[in-house]
Structures are given as structure tokens and as C-alpha cells.
């Protein structure tokens, strides 16, 4: 699908960048005139995907995380989070609620939350090569809103 607007942000897998990624996604989405609830959905979903890249993709080193934000036809926001980390051996299992390979500090609910806050979620991964998570959400056009 053709992008009407697009931006790419590359940052290192430091946990301080979780808040940075949320702010970037919210700012980019502002052109869609989202409601506060929609902004909260966007921030929550991107936070989960970026946290996974930071926690799971690079368990014992710093790596590169790429966040690509696109505005698609039909008032859709696409957020893609890409890492070049360890990859996911079994994507279906990883997406199962409560499944985690993490410590006590994880809940295993990240993918479940991304799914419920976005309209669509696609996960591609290759062990040893990395993971790409792509999410889409349609932002309702609001009556009277000039675009």
C-alpha cells in the first residue's frame, strides 16, 4: 500500500528509548487527528513492540531498533518495529497469551495487548536474523475535522 507520509527513527536498544518511541509515534499520528483514547492505544501498542525489541531481541548487548511510521490511505496508521536480534523460533507460541521467555518482570501479555489495541498485527521473524512487527490501526475521521 502506498504511503502518504512516512518517517523512520533508528535508536539503540536502551530502555530509556521506550518513552522516546511512544512520543515519536504519538507525534507522527497527530496528523490523523486522533482522539485521546486513540493516542493512548497507539502509545501502548508501540511501547509493547519496542520493549520486546529492547528486552528479548538483544538480551545481552545493545542493538539497533528501527521504528517506521507510515500514514496509509483510508486514514490508517502503520507502525513497524524492526530489530536484528535473536529472532523468534515459534511465532504462534510467542503470540499465545501468558507465554514468555522472560523473567518475573515480564507478563507474557505484550502481543495480546498489541492485538487488542490495533486492528492488525503481523510478526515476521527469523532466528539469528531478527524480528519485524507491523501493526495497523484505522483512525476514525471526526466530523468537522479539517484534513
Amino acid at each position, binding site marked *: 500500500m502506498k504511503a502518504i507520509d512516512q518517517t523512520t527513527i533508528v535508536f539503540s536498544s536502551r*530502555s*530509556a528509548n*521506550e*518513552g522516546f518511541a*511512544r512520543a515519536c509515534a504519538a507525534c507522527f499520528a497527530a496528523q490523523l487527528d486522533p482522539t485521546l*483514547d486513540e493516542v*493512548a*492505544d497507539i*502509545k*501502548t501498542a508501540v*511501547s*509493547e513492540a519496542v*520493549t520486546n525489541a*529492547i*528486552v528479548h531481541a538483544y538480551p545481552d548487548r545493545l542493538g539497533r531498533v528501527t521504528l517506521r511510521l507510515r500514514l496509509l490511505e483510508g486514514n490508517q496508521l502503520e507502525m513497524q518495529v524492526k530489530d536484528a536480534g535473536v529472532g523468534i523460533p515459534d511465532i504462534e507460541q510467542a503470540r499465545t*497469551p501468558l507465554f514468555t521467555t522472560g523473567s*518475573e*518482570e*515480564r*507478563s507474557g*501479555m*505484550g502481543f*495480546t*495487548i498489541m492485538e*487488542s*489495541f490495533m486492528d492488525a498485527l503481523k510478526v515476521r521473524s527469523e532466528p539469528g536474523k531478527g524480528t519485524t512487527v507491523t501493526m495497523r490501526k484505522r483512525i476514525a475521521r471526526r466530523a468537522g475535522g479539517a484534513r
Partner: protein
Amino acid sequence: MPITVSRQPEGATIALAGEIDHHGARAMMAQLEDAIASTLPLRLTLDLSGVTFMDSSGIAVLMRALRQMQQLGGSLRVTAIPLQARRVLDAAGVGRLITLE
């Protein structure tokens, strides 16, 4: 990441504030654990009114508090949950395990 403890005769209320993500969760878990261990409440209320953002890392924080309270033989409830945090907890079905008010 600030937490505020207030004691009542029948228990304690701990207010969590700020953004609860993976970046801040570890420090918050440690603070919360210390606060519970030093007040030893029979009934613990976690007040989330000051939480401006929470993702699934916050679920782990609440689950840790629940386990600690269970070990003490006490109870946990979570109150004043802002809408964004509420939707995260609902999506994860946390209400089946923890009393959310």
C-alpha cells in the same frame, strides 16, 4: 518513580505515579516490595490515580505485589485506575486475579 505510602488502622494504601513501563518497572517493583515488607498490611490498596501510562510491564508489577500479599496472608485491591491502564488490565484479563475497582 514515586510511590507514596499511607497507613490506615486496617491496612495501607500505596499510590503509584508516573509512567509504568519496562524502563521504570524494576525500580518500582523494588520500592513497592520494600514498602509492603516494612508496613506488613493485612489489606493493601494500590492507588493508580497518578499513573500517566502503563503497559504490560505494569501487570508484572501488580502480580508481584499480589504474590507478596498472598505470602503475607493479606489481600490486594487496585483502585482509581485511569482509563488507559484499565484497558491494558482488561485486555490481559487481570481482573480474574486481582480485585480492580
